[in-house]
């Protein structure tokens, strides 16, 4: 029963990792940009939520109304102002610029908020749980987090395959030069993709901040979790990303169950095993 519980907690944690990964995978898919600052942007979103909660006195979940549009606007401006200039045939310039961005965000947050770790308090919901029988209980917050992840992934899937914007994303991903010749303004399309990515980052950041303590330095580790979930799931597959997050989450909780020190190690080992046996990921996009 203890193991069933471990498994359940891992699956729910996986939802959070899937959300770290979804924005990362979206950006790479549309414009071949590897965003090294992704983890730090998650932490930035957490701090924006902190400021919002302190200023308005609202519940962290309600603060999403502010944090999501704010992060989307930052994403659009960042893409149009900086990252579009780095895109080209070479993968290296965007990598270097986002690495620099990561350093700037970490140190900026350190200056503003100090290195003290903080946490958002979501109130009673944090400790509520639903008994599911046999002595097992599901925390309301982890469940909410998982359901949000499923909704985000489902929404992305719908957007990509059912809307004009998704069509533009896929066309631009296929062939940037021709997309331009067919009337798509790539600079704007990329801006919208980054806005969408950071909107998801905002949700992930708020959930992270409610779940555990955070400080300006924890971004890079979140980036690694995101990367691992993307690669386990297979690039270009949204549901694969969710599965990747779940596998990573389950591996971590199982590791922690065996020995509290093996938490992160178990996740990395699961990732390495997948990378060694199926380098294309478990659910790679079918090439049409």
């Amino acid at each position, binding site marked *: 029963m203890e193991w069933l519980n471990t498994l359940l907690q891992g699956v729910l944690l996986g939802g959070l990792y899937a959300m770290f990964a979804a924005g990362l995978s979206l950006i790479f898919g549309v414009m071949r940009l590897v965003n090294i600052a992704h983890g730090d942007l998650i932490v930035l979103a957490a701090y924006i939520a902190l400021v919002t909660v302190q200023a308005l006195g609202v519940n962290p979940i309600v603060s999403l109304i502010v944090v999501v549009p704010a992060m989307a606007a930052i994403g659009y401006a960042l893409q149009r102002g900086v990252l579009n200039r780095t895109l080209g045939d070479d993968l290296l310039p965007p990598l270097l610029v986002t690495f620099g961005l990561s350093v700037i965000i970490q140190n900026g947050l350190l200056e503003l908020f100090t290195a003290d770790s903080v946490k958002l308090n979501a109130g009673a919901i944090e400790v509520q749980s639903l008994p599911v029988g046999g002595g097992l209980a599901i925390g309301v917050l982890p469940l909410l987090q998982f359901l949000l992840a499923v909704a985000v992934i489902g929404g992305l899937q719908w957007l990509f395959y059912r809307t*004009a914007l998704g*069509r*533009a994303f*896929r*066309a631009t*991903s*296929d*062939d940037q*030069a*021709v*997309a*331009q*010749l*067919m*009337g*798509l*303004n*790539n600079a704007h399309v990329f801006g919208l993709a980054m806005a969408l990515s950071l909107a998801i980052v905002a949700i992930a950041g708020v959930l992270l901040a409610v779940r555990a303590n955070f400080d300006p330095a924890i971004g890079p580790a979140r980036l690694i979790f995101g990367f691992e979930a993307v690669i386990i799931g297979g690039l270009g597959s949204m549901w694969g990303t969710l599965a990747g997050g779940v596998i990573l989450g389950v591996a971590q909780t199982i590791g922690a169950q065996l020995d509290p020190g093996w938490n992160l190690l178990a996740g990395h080992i699961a990732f390495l095993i997948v990378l060694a046996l199926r380098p294309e990921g478990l659910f790679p996009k079918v090439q*049409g």
Partner: protein
Amino acid sequence: MPERLLEVRALDAHYGDFQALFGVSMTLAAGEVAAVIGANGAGKSTLLRCIAGAMRLRADAIVFDGEPVGDQPAHAMVARGVALVPEGRRLFPSLTVEENLQIGGQLGRPGPWNLKRVYELFPILAERRHQPAPSLSGGQQQMVAIGRALMSNPRLLLCDEISLGLAPIVIRDIYAQLPRIVAEGISLIIVEQDIVQALKTARQVTCLQEGRVSLQGDASTLTREKISAAYFGV
């Protein structure tokens, strides 16, 4: 509608240090069909890419509808009514046939062309609408490429080697549809290796040789000898 829809004025085009076009000029009236011919590497595709806005030029090198547009990006040219059928078709491989067509219509320029009209022009595409674009035959893919360009309701359609790699019977089918497109008031510039096809279709012919205009004139007045001299430079 102005007499002159398009004017190319002493156009020079460069790829880095390499100069692909030297002082190329041509004019096109509204509703007119022009052909650009020439050997491989003569600069035909570059000329179309310049008109489509894919290359950065001085503003007055291209005048469209009375306005200098040489410095406009490609997506702005589509909005003004210039559409390109690129060489080698270049469909979006992860999109279905219908999605490829919809991308062309995404800007929503008003005009006679929509999905229904494209499917009337090329009925086979209606049957294949939900298939991935790469699963179609070469000729069908070319139809999608033409339909995709038409979906933007252009005033000027640029066709780059639409017969390339296709069987003669398929080429005939596709060329048979061009008059229906022109009948909507669209001007056309076709780039062709197949000179006979080009002369049959176009009223006005421009021959390029190593980036320079080697011959220009009314298709009916050009003799075979003149063309072959301009084409090969012998």
